[in-house]
């Protein structure tokens, strides 16, 4: 499969281990971290901009990140993630 680059912005809580948890998930789930930028903490949140490469969709990574208790929001900047639960019944495989 083709490897595609994805850019995501992740808002994290400031809890201990939050960034490690998020970054570790990406690599374990098959998304190779290319760049990473952590912004100064604001209003009890950390903002992380990341670029990853994978043959897996960004939408799946987004949903896996959103499972983490410390992850507040995830935005896919380079790929429009399909909304969960909105597939059309007539859509073919």
């Amino acid at each position, binding site marked *: 499969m083709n490897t595609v680059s994805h850019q995501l912005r992740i808002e994290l809580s400031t809890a201990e281990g939050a960034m490690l948890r998020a970054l570790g998930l990406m690599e374990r789930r098959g998304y190779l971290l290319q760049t990473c930028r952590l912004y100064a903490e604001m209003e009890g949140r950390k903002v992380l901009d990341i670029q990853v490469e994978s043959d897996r969709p960004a939408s799946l990574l987004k949903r896996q990140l959103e*499972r983490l208790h410390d992850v507040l929001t995830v935005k896919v900047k380079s790929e429009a993630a399909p909304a969960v639960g909105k597939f059309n019944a007539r859509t073919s495989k």
Partner: protein
Amino acid sequence: MNSNPKTLVKVRSGSQLLLESLEHQGVKEVFGYPGGAIMPFYDELVRSGIKHYLCRHEQGAALAADGFGRTTRRAGVCIATSGPGATNLVTGIANAYMDSVPMVVITGQVANALQGTDAFQEVDIFGITLPIVKHSYIVRRAEDIPRIVAEAFHLAENGRPGPVLIDFPKDVSIAMVNDPPAPPKLEWIPPQADKASVAAALEMLEDARRPLIFCGGGIAISDSVDAFRSFTRASGIPMVTTLKGIGVMPSDDPVFLGMVGMHGRGSANHAVQNCDVLMVVGARFDDRATGQLSKFAPAARVIHLDIDPAEISKLRKADVSVVGELEPTLKAMTGRVSVNRLWREQCKTWKKEFDWRYDAPGDGVFAPLLLKQLSELGGPDMVVTCDVGQHQMWVAQHCKFSNPLKHLSSGGLGTMGYGLPAAIGAKVADPESTVVCVSGDGSIMMNIQELATLNRYGLAVKIVLLDNSYLGLVRQWQELFFDGNYSETDLSDNPDFARVAEAFGIEARTLDRRDDVQDALQWLLATDGPALLHVLIDSQENVWPLVPPGKANHEMMTAGEIGI
């Protein structure tokens, strides 16, 4: 010193506060093993209202907590000290994570000031377990304990359950807290599926000519068994299960076609391969169930119901996804679809065609038949825990279940050594129930020390130990796919397991003749207290059918094909 009784403050140590917080969560039993860093907690534990079960290895404690959690659907609690105590829990934590079992894990830790200095029995258990926990905490201040414990149980038990770790440094455990804060009240609002996706699912089912339900452990986990049965019986749609889905429908129900996958029943595998709509309920397309994923249900459009959005389209694209709590979703769908008669008849034909056979030649014990007899003798309320290997597959195939919480099997991680500690957890959770651990001669040795736990607490767990003097499932694969190169699977130097059990104070018998099976099983179930039945079986016996690697599920190998 505060001398005014009206303003007396409560003073608690961190350990007392942790115990109070556990009691506040309704914890009455825990499983663990003491050691250096967790000693202040254990010092207080004996003065609390919580009953501690001393397991003889931390892995046993973690797997017992898993068995407790699976049985009760409440978080099982396990405790260990820092360093090796904590790392010994890791397999049990991973087991709970893979099978979505609610668990709260408490590990002692060296004092905050010593962390990062390679102190004695220091290990970064928080870091080690990051990939295998739903969440985790390091307690930095004793004041945070009520909040952390409340959050840990909330996270472990709600949504898709899982293990939550609380790392508890020694200085925090002895720190004194004045007037500790009350635990927060946390509310869980179950996610509800949106009406549009439910309508889309119903529309697809209405259009289907050959619909099939493929269900997994999520139904039992979410306490949706009744809703699932109502939906399925009203619709008449045939159904198959994963290993963890066994019991969501009684095994003898006409719509139930069997377990799907590598050692699934032919009727289930053929139905999956021929269906045109596959409604997946609380399952995650595990590779043991799907076989070669690209060949799984090749003609089917997929409807996927799950509480976890991350499971949707992870492995197989969902044409309709319905994300939310299963029970209300299934209720909303009940009575609104039906299935055509021809497809139902075809599935019935397959079920008949692929019925199990018990007429094995010889007079030695035939394990599938023994397990069928055990199931009939024990009845529908018997809890069966398994280890991992051939016996685990035979239990899945030949024991009858009418409640998924009565079948405790390590599905995702495949943990040899799971069965005995899981049985301890299940028995503690429900002391009145009949709990049978079906194990193998490889698996039992992984946690055999827990026989001492059975004896210590008089836990009447019954063990059926199927002994073929091999790592049977690996041996089978070596026979079939590695040219009979039986590398390191011969266990013919096993100890005499009946004598081992007796040395632990447990009654035991050995069985080697088919004619004696019924009497031996009756003895096992009737014996007061724990008992072990050591069953010698043919070392060449294989589990059939088997889907070879890279094949579709309908391309099953059977005993006849290779001349057995």
